[in-house]
């Protein structure tokens, strides 16, 4: 169905676009170069892995892809920590974040296009759904870019604060995948907020892409999310204060 395609593609595309916009704002002088390199690197990685997808899926008792994604989220988290604590705005960690997110997004969209749910309703509605998702994703990215630009102009440090929910999302996504593979026990949902904001709704998809919103989080996911947020906040604040003192 068209709506399924829209939701699935948006859910994969939006986290990448939101992070890309944030990284672009952190690269004030080299936006075009960064954008070009990000697109090239992500595409190259996806194309490199595409022929091995079947094999990759069978690895580690059928958890190969999940392991790859856990690796991507971990790399992203480390690179985001480096960005948060670095004095200058390093180019390489930002590029690493995009490469990792691009790989997850690319492989998932490729899988959806080649097999699975996508195979059922391939046709006009599939392409139309993908186009709608792309349009929605890009529009949100453009508006997000201008919003961050405005925030940056008012308070430059806010841009660093915006890294925190993105980093927390990496942890909760990695933990969810670890639970899915059975390496971590799954827990009972602490609450169910799907009545207020459903994960299937447009707002739910946006919030999930931004900070990893879960309508029914369990204890492990929530703890991981909160710990990342608190630890990185403390680390980032310490580095920021030290930098300000040095500048003075």
């Amino acid at each position, binding site marked *: 169905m068209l709506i399924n395609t829209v939701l699935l593609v948006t859910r994969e595309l939006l986290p990448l676009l939101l992070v890309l916009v944030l990284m672009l704002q952190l690269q004030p002088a080299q936006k075009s170069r960064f954008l070009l390199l990000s697109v090239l690197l992500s595409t190259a990685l996806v194309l490199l892995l595409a022929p091995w997808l079947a094999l990759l899926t069978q690895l580690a008792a059928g958890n190969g892809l999940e392991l790859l994604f856990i690796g991507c989220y971990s790399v992203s988290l480390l690179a985001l920590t480096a960005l948060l604590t670095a004095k200058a705005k390093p180019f390489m960690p930002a590029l690493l974040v995009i490469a990792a997110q691009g790989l997850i997004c690319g492989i998932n969209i490729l899988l959806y296009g080649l097999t699975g749910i996508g195979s059922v309703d391939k046709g006009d509605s599939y392409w*139309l759904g993908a186009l709608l998702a792309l349009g929605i994703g890009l529009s*949100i990215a453009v508006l997000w870019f201008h919003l961050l630009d405005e925030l940056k102009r008012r308070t430059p440090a806010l841009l660093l604060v915006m890294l925190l929910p993105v980093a927390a999302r990496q942890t909760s996504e990695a933990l969810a995948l670890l639970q899915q593979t059975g390496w971590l026990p799954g827990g009972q949902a602490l609450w169910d907020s799907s009545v207020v904001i459903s994960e299937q709704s447009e707002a739910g998809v946006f919030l999930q892409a931004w900070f990893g919103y879960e309508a029914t989080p369990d204890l492990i996911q929530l703890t991981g999310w909160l710990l990342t947020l608190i630890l990185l906040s403390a680390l980032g604040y310490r580095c920021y204060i030290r930098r300000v003192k040095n500048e003075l």
Partner: protein
Amino acid sequence: MTSVRRYLISVLIAVLVLSSFLAALQSYRLSAERARELFDQDLQLIAGAIWQQYDVNMPQPIQGLAVQLSRHGELKYRSELAPQAVISWAQGYSEQNFAGKRWRVFVQSGNNGWQIMVAQPLQQRLQLADELITASIYPVVLSLPVQALLIWLIVSRALWPLRSLSAQLASRKANELSPVTLEQVPEELKQVLQSTNQLFERLSATFAREKRFASDVAHELRTPLSVLEINLHNALTRWQQQGLSDHDETMLALQQGVERMRQLIEQIMLLNRTHPDNFQAKTRLLDWVALCRQVVSEWFSQLEQKQHSISIEGDEHLMVKADDFALRLLVSNLLGNAIKYTPAGGQIRLTLHKSRNKAVLVIEDSGPGIPPQEYPQVFNRFYRVGGDRHQFAVPGAGLGLAIVKDIVSLHNGSIHLAPAGFASGLKVTVELPL
């Protein structure tokens, strides 16, 4: 914000696409719900119709549907697609799995224990609904490029006066201070335009006043100075006739002071005249080599007096598009400096050649030269190497190279200083575009 136009276009298109696509999705959801109700109603109608026509040997009902009829729990009829077992006993609508598919089932009970079950594949319903609804979304998607183009055109048109104003200001020369005019002035730009034009007016008046003042002062000083120079000369002549000697060289010092002041006034007037803000260049094709020869001949008496040897090397002719007066002054100032600062019996070399798309003049002398660290300062007005108490006691105002720099800028050229090719001295390279 790098560009208001880019900002407006990107934000407006993003908002348009986002709102259109979200509205299309919402409409899709509502239409899908409505289609589901309609398909359910259809199932109910079909069930009613089959019920009325029931016959054990009745032909297969509508294709793609599974139909079963049972009485007191015993299956009396089943269509080709229906399973052997009863699909569902639950009355009304439900979803069931059989024959490898998921089905939407409607069950209705009648009199005497009769029950009818009509089922339709869920996938078939979804595809039908999708085909119907997506057709209504296409126009939304297809019209977006047109709407985006319209936004681009409208924003560009609305910002045209701003771009026109910016282009006019950017294309102005430094001395162009006339008011800016726009064909149509939007309300938002009226104040900006008014303030800009007022600023230009004030600036123009200030420049004119400054120009007139410098020119008037220099001109007014020239006359009494000439009188002073003549009187000094006459006084010195009378002294000589009366056999009086100038033991402490008071008269000589006076003469040198007046000469220096005369030179200063001349240089100030030339500086004022050749400044890019004031100078109205009348460029034409000139032979730079011939011009250099003429300037050398003008300086001949000084060259002879100091026993300098001079040579002009390089191309026979070098055509350059320049203002005659300004170029002559440039060569004269540079050659004058070389003659003045080179000790008697020195060497001066002028080289003229073409390099890529530039005409190059190099003037070298065997004088004391200038320390490289002072190269950038010598083009400043009134700057003299070694200060006022110049070690060579050469009279000068420190304006010659400033005038040369102005003339070079006027012709979009460049000037560089370097040590000369002689044992000592200065090498001045002037490059003018061809």
